[in-house]
């Protein structure tokens, strides 16, 4: 706060804050409205609660699996598979993008292959991975990695190419070699692009892991969805989906915070 603010400035700041609060309130209200109408609609049987579940049923299921002690196992299994898949996909993606940038020949040769690989629905390869690597978390993580890898490579590489050519010329005029161009110009200026890729990867890793669990798993949120479907405990399915959504949102915001922290530091 600065001293000697004019009364106009004060009014402006207050208005801004009020608007922010209004938006936060409306967001909360929307959430409450969704849950309330869901509950009402299923109680009145306009929608079949057997198929659509309801907030209270979900809450009960949640408490039940918490008491059974299995909640933690399932959440933890899926969570660590996703985090590992996410990190590997992002790190390898960036490394490959760097290699492509360092060698123009490499990138020209690989370009059509990358475009095709990007268009392929990697999820369809899930069964192939399982036969290849055996059923287990390795195959699940591989599905998650492949889903996010190619997208990361393309996005980050494109970001690299868009680096301001003037800045590159500048460091070249000081005699910078290719590695220096990379570390001093390309990587720092592509930071926003890389952060973006990370945010997208959060979503993709979750999808990859859940799909992997659909095919092969004995624990995890994806497993609960499949099992719940098989024995027609659709409450279990909905509960898992909800937990999934919350975790995915948290992970997204976590990544966003880390990005802000890094850019503030450097």
């Amino acid at each position, binding site marked *: 706060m600065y001293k000697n603010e004019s009364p106009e400035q004060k009014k402006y700041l207050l208005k801004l804050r009020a608007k922010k609060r209004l938006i936060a309130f409306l967001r909360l209200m929307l959430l409450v409205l969704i849950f309330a109408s869901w509950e009402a609609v299923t109680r009145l049987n306009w929608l079949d609660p057997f198929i659509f579940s309801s907030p209270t049923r979900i809450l009960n299921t949640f408490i039940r699996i918490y008491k059974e002690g299995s909640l933690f196992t399932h959440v933890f299994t899926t969570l660590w598979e996703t985090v590992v898949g996410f990190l590997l996909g992002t790190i390898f993606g960036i490394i490959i993008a760097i290699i492509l940038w360092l060698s123009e020949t490499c990138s020209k040769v690989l370009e059509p292959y990358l475009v095709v690989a990007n268009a392929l629905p990697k999820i369809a390869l899930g069964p192939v991975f*399982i036969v290849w690597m055996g059923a287990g978390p390795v195959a699940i993580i591989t599905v998650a990695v492949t889903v996010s890898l190619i997208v990361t490579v393309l996005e980050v590489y494109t970001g690299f190419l868009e680096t301001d050519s003037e800045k590159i010329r500048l460091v070249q005029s000081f005699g910078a070699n290719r590695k220096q161009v990379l570390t001093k110009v390309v990587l720092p200026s592509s930071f926003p692009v890389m952060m973006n890729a990370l945010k997208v990867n959060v979503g993709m890793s979750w999808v990859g892991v859940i799909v992997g669990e659909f095919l092969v798993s004995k624990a995890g949120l994806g497993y609960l969805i499949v099992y719940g479907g098989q024995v027609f*405990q659709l409450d279990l399915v909905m509960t898992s989906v909800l937990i999934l959504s919350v975790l995915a949102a948290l992970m997204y915001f976590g990544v966003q915070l880390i990005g802000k922290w890094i850019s503030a530091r450097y």
Partner: protein
Amino acid sequence: MKMMRFLLLFSLIVLLLLPGCGTKEFKEITLNEVTHSIFYAPQYVAINKGFFEEEGLKITLVNGAGADKVMTAVLSGQADIGFSGPEACIYVYNEGKEDYAVVFAQLTKRDGSFLVAREPMPDFKWEDVRGKFIIGGRKGGVPLMTLEYVLKQNNIIPGKDVEIDTSVQFALMGGAFLSGMGDFVTLFEPVASSFEKEGNGYIVASMGEASGEIPYTAYYAKKSYIEKNPGIIQSFTNAIYKAQQWIEKSSDREVAEAIAESFPDTDLDLLETVVKRYKSQDTWNKNPVMKEEAFNRLQEVMKEAGELAQFAPYDKLVDNSFAEKAIEKIK
């Protein structure tokens, strides 16, 4: 003049009625099957030999790929009749659905899967799986439950005396075995026989023989649908019964030829081998009636596996009236 008018009216009426005679009206039914397997031969006989057509039904066959998906299609109205393990009906009833599904015709009375090993074991005994690793199928599914039931019957405790993998999805079990996972795997036909043919595995035991009679696959529809369309249900059941009788009288080769159209990628000899195997094991119902004893054994198996909290009432979930009428009508 009057004569003319009369003649005109008469010919008009005749013309209107004409299209009604001679051409039969077909009712279109969507039938969702849990998977496409020789295990369900009578169904394909009914389709290919025109028994459904005789009963005035045109069948659209859809592969549901899983009992839960078949049931979902039936409950949501996407399919008129579902064909899968009746455990789905039990689950749905127990979970409190009001318009639950009711079974009206049974097709198979034994498990249709086989235990496949990596080496031929002509003197296989169930003791031989002690200390080994079996890919058994997913929790909540009947193939796994039957396997565990059989093991327990032979004093082998799943988890303690033998390791069973429950993580692999049904469609991928063969693939997982191929990749080197496990010592044994349970597979349906024609996958089991084609593995044998390629030398990838050897059939050492029949789950159907080992487990005793369990209603494995049956036809069901929503209670409300049956109430609204008894005629369709009856026609359907008649066609199935005709097929069941036909198979009884026919040779393995004839049956193979009848179902060949439904399995274009499988050669005739393999089809015959499989049909022979299933027939010799008394896999198929001779009529569509589901016996109470068999129904309750299924529930026993499910309870043993920990998937059933309470028994569901036989008289609510199974309606044999259509099957009984079919037997009476078609001699």
